[in-house]
């Protein structure tokens, strides 16, 4: 069900300190989220595209992820051009297409794709345990990081339990339909998942305590300080400054 297809790789980006990558992704996303000028947004999309290229990711896989996001964006394309009143772009029969609406939908499309491409190439390119470790060393509350790591672990447990229960209801002839019986079955399935998973979580936690767990996780991989990390952060800052100045320039 879940995979981290982007975390395996040996590109320049994969080798940069995960903490630097998270910081850069955060800074860049926040800046792109506040841009409005189309020129600045186009530049951001170009930068993000370049990032995906630099990370050497499988174009098709990235495209599939983007398609999912653009489903939500498509909703805005279906509604905004006809409802955001302003200068008329053109009229097609009974429909009037407004310039402001098209512009807004275009802004949204560029923005969301730019941010997500950057996120995929900077954050999805690290393995999960590395991410947990990096978040901890970025001074996030340790309870939150602990919760984060355990949740990731339990997603697979829950999914297994779900598949097991799903098989057993199938064997008993259950077929989904729009009926109270069906919803009741789903509700009981979910309840049973909680019961079993909670018991399993308890066992795992006790086992961890027995082995001297004290609430801290350690990362096995090491991230040596190198000049490349500094350079990477510098480039990230230059890019965001470029974006902001483009925005100002066209803002007039």
């Amino acid at each position, binding site marked *: 069900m879940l995979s981290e297809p982007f975390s395996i790789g040996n590109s320049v980006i994969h080798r940069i300190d995960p903490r630097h990558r998270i910081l850069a992704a955060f800074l860049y996303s926040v800046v792109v989220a506040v841009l409005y000028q189309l020129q600045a947004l186009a530049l951001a999309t170009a930068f993000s595209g370049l990032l995906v290229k630099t990370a050497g990711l499988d174009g098709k896989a990235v495209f599939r992820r983007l398609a999912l996001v653009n489903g939500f964006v498509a909703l805005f394309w279906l509604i905004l051009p006809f409802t955001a009143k302003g200068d008329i772009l053109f009229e097609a029969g009974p429909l009037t297409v407004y310039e402001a609406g098209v512009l807004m939908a275009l802004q949204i499309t560029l923005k969301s794709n730019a941010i997500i491409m950057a996120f995929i190439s900077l954050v999805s390119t690290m393995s999960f345990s590395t991410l947990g470790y990096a978040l901890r060393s970025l001074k996030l509350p340790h309870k939150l990081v602990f919760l984060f790591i355990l949740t990731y672990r339990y997603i697979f447990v829950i999914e297994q339990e779900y598949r097991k229960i799903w098989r057993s209801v199938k064997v008993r002839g259950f077929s989904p339909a729009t009926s109270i019986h069906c*919803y009741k079955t789903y509700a009981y399935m979910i*309840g049973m998942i*909680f019961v079993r998973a909670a018991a399993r979580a308890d066992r795992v936690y006790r086992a961890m305590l027995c082995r001297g767990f004290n609430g801290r996780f350690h990362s096995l991989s090491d991230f040596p300080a190198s000049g490349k990390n500094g350079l990477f952060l510098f480039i990230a800052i230059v890019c965001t400054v470029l974006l902001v100045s483009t925005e100002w320039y066209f803002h007039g």
Partner: protein
Amino acid sequence: MHISEGILTWPVLASGAAFAAAGTAVGLKKLKTEDIPKTAILSAAFFVASLIHVPIGPASAHLILNGIVGLLLGWAAFPAILVALFLQALFFQYGGITTLGVNTLLMALPAVLCYLVFHPLIIKKDGYTASAAGFAGGFLSVLFSGIILAAFLIFAHRAFTEVAYFIVSIHLPIMIIEGIITMFCIGFLKKVQPSLLGSVYGFDGSNPAITK
């Protein structure tokens, strides 16, 4: 239910993030270290729920379950939902970094409200009252989430009003299904393992139904 990257304006994103951070801080404070594994289970279930599709007439919708998460976790729903949403952003690009705050707020705030209002009823009462409280918990948490989502969109830009109405209206049947599923699920847990609803998950020791 979530808002994608690139749609909201910065004041909305910033205030959403601030409120979500406050809620998460409260949730983490109330969350004891030994309860983290069980919270993680619910957080993972919330994540997996988005992959479970239930039929509605000819179509299907995926479950949200923020009502159940709220009823079982109370304030800890904030960190639990935050973590699940971050993982969804990581794996499926649902939402993202800048919208993490607003998405957490719109899912977790209704969950906590439902906990405060309906949890005592579910614990103390039996029969129809408890069932009704379960239904209301599931139904209203999705309804509130929809309303908050719509409000965020409209605050961000007036032009989003129609989109906001559209999103809320397609969630109406989902609210009913969430209500039904929450009601049965809570009833089931009450019969099978009441400790999941009560003391074990009672992060808020002040709840009289729990401390008794």
